[in-house]
């Protein structure tokens, strides 16, 4: 893939926490203007990958290029300039709990621009309208449902019109209606605003429904990649187990343990 069409390029990345290797020499690239999903079971370091892309964590080896800049070699001020162009939607929403919805969405605008308060008001209302929560502007974050909080966080993430958005488990713990709303919003944002979306998720159905390209991670490696069609037909036992949700397979149901009989009767 040439560098004009790819927005994030990860090369030979290794990262470990303590003795545990989270990523072992992985390379992947994320195309501009598309929805790319990174899937895998809990604990495979999907969120860690987003934090590495955002420059919050440092890799042991390898490089992460975002828009042709090496994230981990940038000066702090340049990193902050780059971050203004990347939005991130946290699983919890990460809204500031001491200010209301309006001020939360206005926060990046107030911090990073010199726009007048009336201009900021219009922009915030436009963003809130886009996620359908213009009427909720005076609520405090603790008065919002989980799905609403995530939508407010989405409005805040697009406040500065970034070039890409990273979604951390956007579908987890949502009721069917907010799930549908989020899926629709992510797709719309991508098409209407021409953003690049990176979705980290283990919700197979929803992700397959909107992703253009999928990477499946397992034990620090890329276990499979391709378009949703290709992934469904991929000849890998592991990927099939994950995609179809089988309880046993290459990933065992049991956490490694001593012999069961011995454990019960010989102690």
């Amino acid at each position, binding site marked *: 893939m040439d560098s004009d069409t790819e927005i994030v390029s990860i090369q030979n990345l290794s990262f470990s926490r303590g003795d545990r290797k989270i990523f072992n020499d992985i390379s992947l690239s994320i195309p501009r203007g598309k929805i790319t999903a990174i899937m895998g079971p809990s604990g495979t370091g999907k969120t860690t990958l987003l934090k590495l892309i955002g420059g*919050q964590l440092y890799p042991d080896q390898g490089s992460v290029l975002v828009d042709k800049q090496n994230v981990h070699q940038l000066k702090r001020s340049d990193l902050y*300039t780059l971050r*203004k162009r990347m939005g*991130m939607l*946290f699983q*919890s929403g990460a809204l500031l709990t001491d200010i209301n919805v309006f001020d939360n969405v206005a926060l990046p605008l107030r911090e990073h621009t010199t726009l007048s308060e009336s201009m900021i008001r219009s922009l915030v209302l436009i963003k809130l309208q886009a996620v359908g929560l213009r009427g909720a502007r005076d609520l405090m974050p603790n008065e919002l449902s989980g799905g609403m909080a995530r939508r407010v*966080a989405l409005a805040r993430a697009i406040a500065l019109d970034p070039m890409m958005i990273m979604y951390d488990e956007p579908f987890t713990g949502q009721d069917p209606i907010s799930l549908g709303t989020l899926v629709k919003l992510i797709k719309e944002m991508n098409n209407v605003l021409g953003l690049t979306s990176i979705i980290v998720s283990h919700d197979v159905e929803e992700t397959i429904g909107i992703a253009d390209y999928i990477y499946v991670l397992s034990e620090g490696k890329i276990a499979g990649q391709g378009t949703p069609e290709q992934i469904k037909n991929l000849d890998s036992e592991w990927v099939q187990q994950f995609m179809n949700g089988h309880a046993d397979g290459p990933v065992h149901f049991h956490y490694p343990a001593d012999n069961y009989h011995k454990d019960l009767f010989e102690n």
Partner: protein
Amino acid sequence: MIRFFQHLGHTTTSSFAKLGRSFFFLTHTLTASASVIPRPRLLTNQLYSVGVLSFLIITISGLFVGMVLGLQGFYILSDFGAEETLGVMVAASLVRELGPVVAALLFAGRAGSALTAEIGLMKATEQLSGMEMMAIDPLKRIIAPRFLAGFIAMPLLAALFSSVGVLGGHIVGVGTLGVDDGAYWSQMQAGLDFQDDIINGIIKSIVFGFAISWISLFEGYDAIPTSEGVSRATTRTVVNSAFTILGLDFILTALMFGDI
């Protein structure tokens, strides 16, 4: 035996690492403090929550401490027929020691623990991480205003504590035990030195305010982002603040009033 030394080594290195992180944190906070100036609103909000909301506990405690001092002082001084000097005794104890120290201990319990819990929970709910990803430095937006607020509020609260305490001593000494009103005030005026007593007391409370803000914000920022981690950090704030206040008080007193 080997395990003991391993444990000892681990504890030592990790506490030095923590000390290093805390100094790193302090220098960053101090440099970030300049960014509060164009946004005074952030500071006033924090002054309200750490300062104004501590008003009641400081006032009531100050009043009772002053009343107890008046009572105890009167019984001891009257043995020597020196009850007229009650005013200077109450005021000197408050301004030199009890004002700064007790107000600081109360402040650490009331405001310091709240700061740690707040920052720790912000960390646990990814609010700090979220700000970083929005290219907003949490040290500038969250930590620095709180640090300055603690630093400014502490001397004012200590002064309030001492003033209310002097009134409490007056209520008991003059109001109920019959010390002469004029003697209470004039002895105080004559016996206290502005430089030696009042300024030194203020210096103490500034140092304590600095230490409490530093400890409580750092503990919150460094907390393990789980409910257990935040609860431990809050406890550490109160315990470490108390040790630090009492230890610093001894050092400062020795420097100010002793001949060391």
